[in-house]
């Protein structure tokens, strides 16, 4: 096995056939490349198909125990990701084989976590739920088990309400889990609850205040929810998004859309309230012009430039 230097990137390691290096790189950089992990992991760990159709892990003995277990765990997760259930089960069997040298037992939380995932992937949701309930009984603050209970419900058709309730319950006890708030935002979007999605994205922004993508999603949710107050909030967050990342093309388009949405809302107001928004109207018009200029500049030398100019010209004529 060759040592991995700082200049070794994933394609180099793969081309060299350094299977262990590939798995380590993917683990270290937290990449989601399940097909690569499966391809290299099978070769590293000697996966083979038995006459009855099941799979077994025959290799990897020359690796240290810690490396072998880490590779088996990684291969198990990647197999589930690409739907190779038999391979995942073979990894699980190898992990729980009960070797005298192995620190892994079938009672360990980490093993049971993988067992739960395998049961979910094979469609045994009741079995998976049983595993997660047992994990929560041992440790009520086991966040992974709580989250998987939500996932078990979300995977089953007709359980959307129960899934949303499970995720809500999880967020009530883990309000700092930004990823869970993001998942709840997506659930809200899927049922067209844009106000709810905006609420969730506000929580995500608390956790990632300098992330331009999050401000963009929040701005878009407010813009879609509609109403004058939401239109102003949309404009604010999309402006923040472009300030944080001037290369965020989605935010520039969103800013123009939000400003136009604000102008449409103002048009619907009575005379008195419209006068109170005069300054806001001027700001919105300037934002549309500014955003348009930036977009045209962005597409310099590209075919899209002419299309964007045409689109902005038509928008300008309608203002």
């Amino acid at each position: 096995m060759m040592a991995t230097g700082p200049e070794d990137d994933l394609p180099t390691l793969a081309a060299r056939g350094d299977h262990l290096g590939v798995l380590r790189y993917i683990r270290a950089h937290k990449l989601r490349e399940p097909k690569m992990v499966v391809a290299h992991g099978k070769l590293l760990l000697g996966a083979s198909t038995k006459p009855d159709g099941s799979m077994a892990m025959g290799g990897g003995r020359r690796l240290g125990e810690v490396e072998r277990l880490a590779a088996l765990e990684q291969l198990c997760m990647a197999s589930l990701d690409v739907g190779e259930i038999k391979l995942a089960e073979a990894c699980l069997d190898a992990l729980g084989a009960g070797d005298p040298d192995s620190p892994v037992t079938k009672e360990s939380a980490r093993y049971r976590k993988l067992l739960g995932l395998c049961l979910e992937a094979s469609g045994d949701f009741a079995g998976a739920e049983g595993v997660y309930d047992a994990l929560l009984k041992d440790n009520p603050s086991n966040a992974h088990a709580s989250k998987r209970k939500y996932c078990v419900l979300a995977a089953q058709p007709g359980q959307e309400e129960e899934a949303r309730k499970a995720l809500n319950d999880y967020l009530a006890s883990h309000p700092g889990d930004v990823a869970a708030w993001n998942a709840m935002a997506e659930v809200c979007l899927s049922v067209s609850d844009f106000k709810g999605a905006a609420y969730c994205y506000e929580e995500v922004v608390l956790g990632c205040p300098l992330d331009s993508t999050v401000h963009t999603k929040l701005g878009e949710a407010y813009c879609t929810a509609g109403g004058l107050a939401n239109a102003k909030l949309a404009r604010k967050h999309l402006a923040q998004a472009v300030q944080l990342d001037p290369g965020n093309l989605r935010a520039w388009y969103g800013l123009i859309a939000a400003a136009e949405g604000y102008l449409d809302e103002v048009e619907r107001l009575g005379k008195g309230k419209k006068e109170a928004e005069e300054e806001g109207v001027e700001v919105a018009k300037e934002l549309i012009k500014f955003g348009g200029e930036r977009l045209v500049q962005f597409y310099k030398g590209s075919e899209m430039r002419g299309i964007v100019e045409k689109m902005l010209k038509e928008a300008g004529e309608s203002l």
Partner: protein
Amino acid sequence: MVKRSISLGAVAQIKMALHAARHGFSAPLHGIVLGRSSPGGGEGSIEVVDAVPVCHEVPTKPVVDMALRLTEAHLQTQKGMEGVRIVGWYTANARAASEEPNAPACRIAASMAEGAGEEFILLVVSTKALVDCELPICTVYEKGSSRAFTNRVDSDRVSSTGPNNGGEILSKALQQLPSSEYESDVAGGGKKGPSLAICDYVDHLEDGGKGDWLGNAAVKEFVESFR
């Protein structure tokens, strides 16, 4: 109600299929359907000639609004697209087993149809048809009496146009979809085969404005190479 016939072009279907195959991992897909409609003797017809992939997430107003406006501006600048306009919206559900159109797609289609009149359709990409590589890959919905897109169009009114071996072309196209930027042939020492990319509006925004989401010319050339 007018019983119009609907023909789905191969290029449009293959773009929708590639979009679903590339991004369909637990995410809904949405896109614009382009075509021509003709009144034709009281029954009328809609000919779907192309598709413009928009997003692989629940669509928001800014994304839909801008995608539609850019598509309309694009149609006005393209030669050979005379008479082609936006005639529908397509979607694919996040859950493979679900064949009914999802709520956001129905809402978008209903809103767009207000301006487009009766000649507007909603297409739902069928996972089964995609797996079996059978054309047509979509079920077609039109407006019901409640103005919602819940009326499924009978399959005898829907046909596929284009090369006779449409299923074979679809299968070949799906095989050429790259699975990741790191894809490599482990046994072949890192060599990559030919690849066919599909880009939607959100991909275009995320890759700094590079992808050809409006045309996806590579897909059209691929289909044309089989004629």
